[in-house]
């Protein structure tokens, strides 16, 4: 409990956002890896919030923490984020070891195929829309709740 008292108010505020009951716990992990928000700090905030506002017994408490840790350990990326990286120079280089093969190209394909509406994923809030250019039907947009 001494750890909790050391916590900065600002961080607590950020973390409490993640803990609104209606939201899934996996909000704690996001596209960007946020090293300052890890399982331990989440757990500390949980501890504090639980103590103050509700009566959560110790078993429930550890259950929540272990759930957090499990999710926290996964490196996950949304489609939009992955596609965002496709056009960066590092992603366009030729792999060091690439076999000669009819399906292997000597030059990188045009990333135009992967284009998407930037406005759709700028900013982290709200639904993301998965788009691929060249297609205009709405059947190719996928809503992602995050």
């Amino acid at each position, binding site marked *: 409990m001494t750890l909790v008292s050391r916590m900065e108010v600002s961080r607590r505020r950020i973390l409490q956002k993640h803990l609104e009951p209606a939201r899934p716990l*996996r909000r704690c992990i996001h596209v960007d890896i946020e090293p300052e928000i890890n399982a331990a700090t989440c757990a500390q905030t949980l501890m504090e919030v639980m103590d103050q506002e509700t009566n959560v017994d110790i078993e429930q408490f550890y259950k929540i923490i272990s759930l957090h840790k499990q999710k926290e350990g*996964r*490196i*996950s*990326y*949304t*489609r939009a*984020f*992955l*596609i965002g*990286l*496709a056009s*960066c120079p*590092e*992603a*366009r*280089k*030729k*792999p060091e*070891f*690439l*076999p000669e*093969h009819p*399906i*292997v*190209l*000597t*030059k*990188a*394909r045009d*990333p135009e*195929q*992967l284009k998407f509406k930037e406005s759709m994923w700028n900013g982290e809030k709200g639904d993301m829309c*998965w788009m*691929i250019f060249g*297609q205009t039907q709405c*059947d*190719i*947009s*996928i809503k*992602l709740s995050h």
Partner: protein
Amino acid sequence: MNNKFDALKDDDSGDHDQDQGSPKDGEKEKTEDEDKEQSISKKKMVVPGAGEHPLQYNYSFWYSRRTPGRPASTQSYEQNIKQIGSFASVEQFWRFYSHMIRPGDLTGHSDFHLFKEGIKPMWEDDANKMGGKWIIRLRKGLASRCWENLILAMLGEQFMVGEEICGAVVSVRFQEDIISIWNKTASDQSTTARIRDTLRRVLNLPPNTIMEYKTHTDSIKAWEDFHGLVNASGGR
């Protein structure tokens, strides 16, 4: 016989199909391949470069194609499948991906496989042998886009089924394309249901899309039955 052959071929999304030699041949090749692979993995294990975005797992791209003109049964599946490369970060993935033909541009009877490093895209691999796959058949023209969405969801850990995912396959066939995703435990219904639901979401499948789950033991049995028929008729 031909009809049955074709049915089997079409049914099988990116795995053995009918392209394997006798079990004996298969075993022999397996040992050789394993030796070779072990020495490769000793040499180097792919790691994310400085400043790159690491993936939860390392993956390998594979490609296979049935060589036309040769009798299918004399070829080994393992002989036909070629490892393109392994990657450990998002950037490394794009390097390979952007230097490969998209599945929609492939011709003939061919497959791309993307599996976790260390798992061969084969039913018999330890990680696969108790597993199965979800199969979605696509009309021509959709393969590239669906494959992309499928593998990005896999690499981005969107399936949320722990260690269960083994890999994904896109199979280019004559009149249709097939995508599938393989998992470790066919009997784990909550996992397979979750994979199905995630597939629907990331591929934005219409509600009436037919999705079929097939266990690898069923696939093996179908393959053996078929080859049993070949043998009985004196084919080999």
